Each structure stands twice: as C-alpha cells, then as structure tokens.
C-alpha cells in the first residue's frame, strides 16, 4: 500500500487553543478511513486543514508526495463534503453536480455534451437517475447527501473528505447511507476520509479507524483492534463500551480499586502504580450473589438498577461500590434476556483475560 496523503507534524492554533497538536498520520490509496473523536478533539479542524480552508501553523501535508503548503483549496484535487451538504439552493440537482465541471478555474469543461454525460454517470452512481431536473429543495435529506457527494465526485478528486456526512440524517437513512457510501467508494477506488463523533459509525465505515483526542492522534488501526484493544484508557472511554475502574496495580498481577481487588493477566508493560482497569460491557456475566464464582473468574458485587432493551441486545445497569454505575450487555441472538429484581445484589463476573489495564 502506498501513502496517498501524508500529514506530518501538523499543528494548528486558534488563539491560545491548540486544535491540532503535532499530528502525523498518513492515508493510503483506496481506503476508507474514519476519523473518530469527541467534539473539540480537532477532527473537523484536521479536515479543514487538509482541504485547505485553514492554514496549519506548523507541519506539512503531502499529497502523492507533493507538498500542499500554499496551494489553495480548489487546486488540491481534494473533495470536501460538508455536514450541511451546502447545495446551491437556486440550482437544479443537475446544475449542482455540474457546477465544478462548468465553473472551475482550471480546465473547465466547455462541451455541454460531455458535462451531461459525466453528470448523468455520477447521478447514476449515487442512485439519483431521474432527479436531475429537480430543485434541491424538492428532494429528501438522503438525496441531498447523494447530490453533495456526486457534486464532489464528478471532478475526480484523489481524496474525498466527509465532515460528519450522516449527522443530518435520521437513523434509518443513516444506516442505508453507510452501505451506499462504502459501495460508492469501492466502485471508484478512491480514498474516503470520514469524520464522525459516533463510535458505531466509525467502526462500521472505516477500513481503518483513526482516533483523535485533544488534537493528537491516539490510535490508528483496523476497527477490530480499536474496539478490542483500545490504545489508551481515553480511547476506551470514548468507545463507550467499557466499565472502567480507577485504582492501582500492586504486585504486578493484582489490581485494587476501592474495596475490590482483582487479579489480571499482566501485560508486558505492567508496573505497580495508579491505573485504570477496563472490562467490556458484553464480557460480563451476571450471577446470583449466592452463587460461587467459577474457577478463573473475578468480579464485583453490585445492585441491579434497571435494564434497557434495544432489540438485538439488552443493557443492564448496576450500582457498584461508591455509586459507580456498571453496565452489562447481553446479546440476545442466542439467549433470552434475564430477569433481575431491582434493588437486589448480584455478582458481576468476568475472566481476567478479558480485562484491559492502562497505566
């Protein structure tokens, strides 16, 4: 794989705020990369710096080996799809898509026949064949999203940057557009960079997921690795699928948090000292308080509060020591939901091998 976009030590300041802090990342050709981060993590800033709407205060960006410093947005060959779609309200769908071809400064297409052909091809690709004559206010949100995408794609950019592209759509449309976006990308074979604040979306969409926090890249890996092996406690917290215990490691293989202490499988960098112990919601088994734990299992006692049913899975909420809320997720594909009585105490059990410890 060859890097198509290379971002090297980019720093961006807004006054005294550090939006991007010495960030380096490289994008490969023909991949779908999702950029995940909480709001304020600098992910939109990174996108705007790459697109050329903002100038980095330090660092360089290379597109296919050529530096982009000083090259204005429209000469970079990078497409940008904004969250609000930014469709031109006074033009038809066709004219919106044709805009770049007709009006770009460099090599505009003068032959209307060619414009018609290319625009129609693109409308077909995004599934809007017969809508060319419609005004952009006469189409639905999902269709607007497709028009925005087609408008950018028609100019054959090398990379497409999507700024929270699904944020303005309702849940149903969102999952349809996820599939569509991946299909369109595969068909064209260009690199998509998709910014999102939604961990679910980042994991489903990306061939790789880059996690940004406070202007730094904290992890970049395939979705499976990010989900199962978050690089830091912050990433784990942001994924919102881990119970986290703050405490300290002792003796190299015991973790003490409040009154509980659990053994864990020592990692290579294990050391005594303060740390965070994480167990994923769906790695926990709930047992009656009286039941003895099976060999090799560790756990805590907690009081059942309530449950939340969501179809394919169910979340149980428990209150542990020090009013700490613990969550347990059961996938319901092969089992029935359990009935727990609110206010009663249960044992939450897991295998030490499923736990992650961060220092």
């Amino acid at each position, binding site marked *: 794989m060859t890097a198509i976009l290379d971002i090297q030590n980019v720093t961006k300041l807004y006054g005294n705020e550090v939006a991007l802090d010495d960030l380096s990342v490289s994008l490969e050709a023909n991949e779908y990369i999702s950029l995940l981060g909480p709001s304020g993590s600098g992910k939109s800033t990174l996108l705007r710096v790459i*697109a*050329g*709407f903002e100038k980095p205060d330090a660092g360089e960006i290379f597109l296919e080996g050529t530096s982009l410093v000083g090259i*204005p*947005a*429209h*000469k970079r060959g*990078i*497409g*940008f799809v*904004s969250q*609000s779609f*930014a*469709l*031109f*309200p*006074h033009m038809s769908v066709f004219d919106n898509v044709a*805009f*770049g071809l007709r*009006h*770009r*400064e*460099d090599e505009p297409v003068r032959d209307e026949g060619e414009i018609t052909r290319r625009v129609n091809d693109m409308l077909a690709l995004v599934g809007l064949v017969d809508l060319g004559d419609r005004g952009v206010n006469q189409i639905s949100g999902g269709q607007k999203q497709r028009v925005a995408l087609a*408008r*950018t794609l028609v*100019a054959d950019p090398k990379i497409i940057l999507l700024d929270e592209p699904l944020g303005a759509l309702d849940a149903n449309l969102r999952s349809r557009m996820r599939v569509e976006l991946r299909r369109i990308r595969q068909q064209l074979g260009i690199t998509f960079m998709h910014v999102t604040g939604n961990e679910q979306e980042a994991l489903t969409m990306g061939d790789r997921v880059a996690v940004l926090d406070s202007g730094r890249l904290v992890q970049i890996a395939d979705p499976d690795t990010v989900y199962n092996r978050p690089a830091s406690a912050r990433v784990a917290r942001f994924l919102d699928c881990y119970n986290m215990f703050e405490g300290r490691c002792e003796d190299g293989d015991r973790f003490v948090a409040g009154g509980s202490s659990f053994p864990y499988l020592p990692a290579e960098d294990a050391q005594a000292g303060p740390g965070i112990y994480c167990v994923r919601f769906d790695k926990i088994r709930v047992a009656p308080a009286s039941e003895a734990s099976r060999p090799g299992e560790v756990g805590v006692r907690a009081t059942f509060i309530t449950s939340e049913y969501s179809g394919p899975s169910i979340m149980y909420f428990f209150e542990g020591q020090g009013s700490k809320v613990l969550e347990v997720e059961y996938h319901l594909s092969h089992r029935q939901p359990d009935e727990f009585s609110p206010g009663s105490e249960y044992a939450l059990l897991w295998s030490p091998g499923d736990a992650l410890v961060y220092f």
Partner: protein
Amino acid sequence: MQVGSGAVAAARLAAEKKDPRARRITAILVAPGTIWMILFLVVPMLMMVYVSFWTQKTFTIEPTLTVRSWVAFFSSETYFGALLRTIKIWLIVLAATFFVGYPTALFIGLFIKNKTIQTIVLVLCVVPFWTSFLIRVLAWRPMLGKEGAVNIVLQKIGVISQPIEVLLFTEFSVVIGMTQIYVVFMVGPIAFMLSRIDPSLIEAARDLGASTWRIFRTIIFPLSLPGVVVGAIFVSVMVLGEFATSGALSGRKVNLLGNIIVTQVGSLKWAFAAVVGVILTAVMAVVVAALLRLVDLKKEL
C-alpha cells in the same frame, strides 16, 4: 380500517362544526384592512381616473366627460418630455443606487461576520435620515455649487482650473441627490439577503474550483437577487413619484411628472393633474410588475 375512517369522518364533522366560527374570525380580521384599502386606495384611484376625463375650466372642473386633458398631455412637448425624463432619471438613479449600494451591501452582508456589528453598520446607514429631507437635499447646494466644496477641492489640488458649472442645477445634481437619499433602500434588502447566504456554500464552490468572480456570478449574486428586486422596487416607487429633490437641486429646470402634478394642482388644474397621476401610477405598476417577474419573492423570502 373501519375505526380509522370513522375517526376521520368524526374529525371532518368537528371541523365543519367549527367552520362558521373560524370563518367569522377570518372575516373580522380581514375587514379593517380591506375597508381601509377600498376607502383610501381603490376609491381615490378610481376617482383619479374619473376626474382625468372631466372638463377643465379656468379655475374649476366640471363632470362633463372629455379626453381633452389626455390629448393635451400627449401632444405637449413639455409634458410628454417630462414623462420621458422621469423614466430616464429613474433608470439612472436605479442603476446608480445599485452600483453604489451593492458593494456596500456586499461588505455589510458578507464580509462583516458578526451579526451585531452588521446591525450597527446598517443602522449607521440610516443615520442621515435623522435630519429632515429638505436639509439633506439642500446640503448638496453648497457641495455642488459653482463655489461649492467639490469645485474648491478640485481647484485646490489642481485637477481643474475653472470651476465646473454643470454640477448644480442640472440633471446631474438631481441624480446625485436622489442616489444619496435612496441608496440606503437598496443596501438594506440586499445586505439582508447576502447575510442569509450559508458560508459553507461559498466554501463548497471554492472547493469545487471556482474563482472568486465565478462564485460571485454564479452563487452570491443569484442568491442576492431577491434583495436587489425588493430594493429596486423601493427605489423605483420613490424616485418615480419624486418632486422635491428635482425641485430643490435643478433650479426648476428639470421637470419630472411629480413636479408637474405639484404645479398643476397649485394652479387648480385638477383634471390635468389627474391625467399625470394616472400615467405615473400606470408607469409604477408596470415597473413593479416587471421587477416582480424577475424573481418569485414568495418563494425566495
């Protein structure tokens, strides 16, 4: 299904029961406006048309129908010329207010990002209106006169050796005066429309490769067009009916339709004033209708 249609029928029945009441409220709300418009707009207009066909005696008019006043208007060089001059001055002032007003509006609506500062600057545009109309117009005399400010400055910096005399008491001074007074009516609506343009549209256009000029031509200007039309309607209606500015700044040399109405009414020539009034109203109606055809304001605003 049956439950559904039953519910629909019941709802419809309820709606019908409510209907006369709702209709009465509508009627009550609409009545004052309608009565007002009939009494003070429709009736006077019809009156004006009617009176324009009355017979004019030296100091009185009689309700004997005749087209003499109409014939007099169109056969007289002075009066028909005034119509043409009115149209000419209107077009020039319209163009001038547009060319002066649009860049101003562009600056206020697009370049000032802060809404509060935007409002403050727009209010500043209106500050000259705190002085009386007459003072605003007459202030141009010491500016444009033979020994006025403009001539003095130009002579001092050596651009001209002799004072320019055509600055004042010409069509030029009328145009200058009117432009200064009415330009703000152009700036307001355009700035309003421009400030509503989503900045991401301009960003998107730039990202798609368009130059600044292209973006202006294809995105910014078309989106501000409703503002231009509203501004043009304001300016047109006011300029077409103007008489004071031309009176004060032309030394009575530039007669517009408005000036003719004033003098005719002054000498009690009501029938003839009515003819001019009808023509003026007709011109305004045509202009407004034409401007409204340019954009669908109901859709755009």
